[in-house]
């Protein structure tokens, strides 16, 4: 089954690069996405299909991320159709092919149970997504792509080194050296501690770069700022979730090795640091897409913080992976609409979005309230759960810092978002023909409904999946 999920999108990517017409090609996206999601759901109902080989296993975290990315991609693909209709002037061959390829490699990431294979897959996501950032072919987009590629590759290289260290950690103790996840988990307690620690550091930095944790986040505002909104949504919801999944697996091994005391210190530090950096750069931010990038940095920090807090906060963290991904969808897609409608992303020109684009403006505002953890939206449940976890773990200082940084971020983000949506469109704001079509607004509404749904009612299956993840991570070998 894994092969279907992984290869089908790649095949479709090949098809896409073969198809001639722009609009036909764009329709391949929703087609593939729908079938992919359908297959995923089918697999999720059939536990016997979840183990293909020793290397390709769909463990509970993988299931969660696969489902999230599948949903995200489906909605984004519909949006992409609408978006590409507005961008008829340039060929979307590379764009569609890369998007589909991305779906394939992401599936590979979620399935892979071999750290080396996972590394390969994640590096592949970097390469596949680079052309997406470059879609606009402007000088700025080249610059963004360059930074994304260089910084990302360096980080990923470190992750490779870390993977080798991990392998050596098992080799060193005379165990037969392996990178398959199962064996590492089984032999975790015997792994050589110094190598394990070094490996964890390198992997944290490496995959942290991909997640965009401070201070490795530097590529993020540029990439998110220059890429089209739909790409931003896929980055903030999909790529980061994959990187987090990788980090989660590493954390799992260290946890199984009984090293959580050591790891949690680093994780807490990085998490708080990321939130702080995000806050620093969000206050007084005049470019609302860069602001969203920093918000993504902040939420990666929250995830890592939850991981660092450990057992009590794991449920909240896992839920936050989902809620954050979905809410980012709302924010980036609506921001994309606003950006197109004003042909600018600086709040000096963009005013009164609620008047020019009533739907996108309101959704942007709602998304802001959601992502900052206001009830009754989804992120509230997860962030509140993480906070409770911090209290339960007796980490009061962490909890206090967490709340304080949430406030800083709220102030920074709120000032910018209200500037964008409220008031009258300013005089120097260029008027563009862009208006909210069905395909560019319906997906955003769908995302928002999901966010609201997660806030007031978490479907039982999803809840069960999350509990599985927590139980899975808690297993001490």
């Amino acid at each position, binding site marked *: 089954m894994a092969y279907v999920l992984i290869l089908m999108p790649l095949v479709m990517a090949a098809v896409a690069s073969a198809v001639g017409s722009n609009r036909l090609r764009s329709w391949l996206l929703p087609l593939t996405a729908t079938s992919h999601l359908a297959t995923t759901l089918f697999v999720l109902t059939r536990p016997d299909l979840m183990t293909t080989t020793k290397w390709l296993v769909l463990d509970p975290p993988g299931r969660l991320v696969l489902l999230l990315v599948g949903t995200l991609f489906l909605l984004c693909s519909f949006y992409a159709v609408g978006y590409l209709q507005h961008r008829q002037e340039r060929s979307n061959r590379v764009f569609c092919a890369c998007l589909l390829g991305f779906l394939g490699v992401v599936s590979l990431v979620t399935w892979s149970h*071999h750290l*080396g*294979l996972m*590394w*390969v897959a994640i*590096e*592949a996501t*970097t*390469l596949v997504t*680079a052309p997406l950032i*470059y879609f606009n072919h402007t*000088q*700025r987009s*080249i*610059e*963004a*792509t*360059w*930074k994304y*590629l*260089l910084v990302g*590759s*360096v980080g990923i*290289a470190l992750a*490779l*080194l870390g993977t*080798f*260290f991990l*392998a*050596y950690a*098992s*080799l*060193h103790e*005379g165990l037969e*050296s*392996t*990178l398959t996840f199962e064996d590492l988990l089984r032999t975790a307690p015997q792994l*050589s501690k*110094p*190598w394990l620690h*070094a490996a964890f550091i390198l992997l944290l930095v490496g995959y942290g770069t991909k997640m965009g944790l401070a201070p490795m986040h530097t590529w993020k*505002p*540029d990439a998110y*700022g*220059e890429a089209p909104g739909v790409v931003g949504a896929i980055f903030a919801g999909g790529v980061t979730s994959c990187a987090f999944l990788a980090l989660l697996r590493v954390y799992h091994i260290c946890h199984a090795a009984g090293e959580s005391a050591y790891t949690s210190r680093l994780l807490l530090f990085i998490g708080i640091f990321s939130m702080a950096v995000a806050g620093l*750069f969000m206050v007084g*931010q005049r470019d609302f897409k*860069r602001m969203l990038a920093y918000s993504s940095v902040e939420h990666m920090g929250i995830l890592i913080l939850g991981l660092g807090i450990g057992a009590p906060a794991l449920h909240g963290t896992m839920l936050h992976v989902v809620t954050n991904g979905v809410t980012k969808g709302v924010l980036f897609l609506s921001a994309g609409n606003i950006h197109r409608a004003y042909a600018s992303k600086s709040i000096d020109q963009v005013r009164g979005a609620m008047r020019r684009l009533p739907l996108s403006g309101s959704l942007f505002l709602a998304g802001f309230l959601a992502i900052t953890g206001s009830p009754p939206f989804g992120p509230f449940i997860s962030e509140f759960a993480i906070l409770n976890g911090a209290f339960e773990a007796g980490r009061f200082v962490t909890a206090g810092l967490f709340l304080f940084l949430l406030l800083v971020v709220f102030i920074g983000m709120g000032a910018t978002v209200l500037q964008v949506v409220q008031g009258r469109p300013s005089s120097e704001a260029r008027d563009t023909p862009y208006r909210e079509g069905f395909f560019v607004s319906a997906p955003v509404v769908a995302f928002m409904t999901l966010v609201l749904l997660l806030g007031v009612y978490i479907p039982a299956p999803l809840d069960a999946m999350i509990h599985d993840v927590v139980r899975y991570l808690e297993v001490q070998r």
Partner: protein
Amino acid sequence: MTNLLNAVLVIVLVMNLSLLGTSRILAVIRTVAAQGALLGAIPLLVHKNPTIPVVLATFVAIVLKGIVIPAIMIRALRDAHIKREVEPLIGLLPSIILGAVATTFALLFADQLPLADHHDGALLVPASIATVLVGFVLLTTRYKALSQVVGYLVLENGIFIFGMLLIEAIPLVVEMGVLLDLFVGIFVICIIVNHINRAFSSMDTRRLVSLKD
């Protein structure tokens, strides 16, 4: 066996320093190519009994690292009409010294990491760490885009050296995957470098600072 290996590794280290000391980019690329080829050959040294796949892998590695990638880069260099890395962030001599310091640090730090007994005495770990650090030095002190690509290559070489420690551990598929990723990565980067060259009519990364806060 180990002695030969160590000898090779010392040559690699010397190459690192020469990379830091050269300003002509063509020479730098050639050095990296030589380094890559040399490293690609190492598996034959460390492996107890080389099997066909291993030899195959070695061959691929040598071809990629020693011939194909440098070729791509040299093409890019030719399109860019630049000869040498002028005014790097820090001068050549200081960067050599920096590299030397990095190497020393690597040697000292490597002692902290316990080695499996059958690897004892091999310079693999310090050499790999040193090469990684040299790669970082290149990445952080050179302004020309191509020089940074070279730095990235050196970084990868360093990791490759460490990979020798677990030549048995890593399955061939992963090995190949890594090489493939490296290759595609360099390829994509070079494409971007070309685009930069066309868009900015220069390879100076100091011009790529329009995106900032």
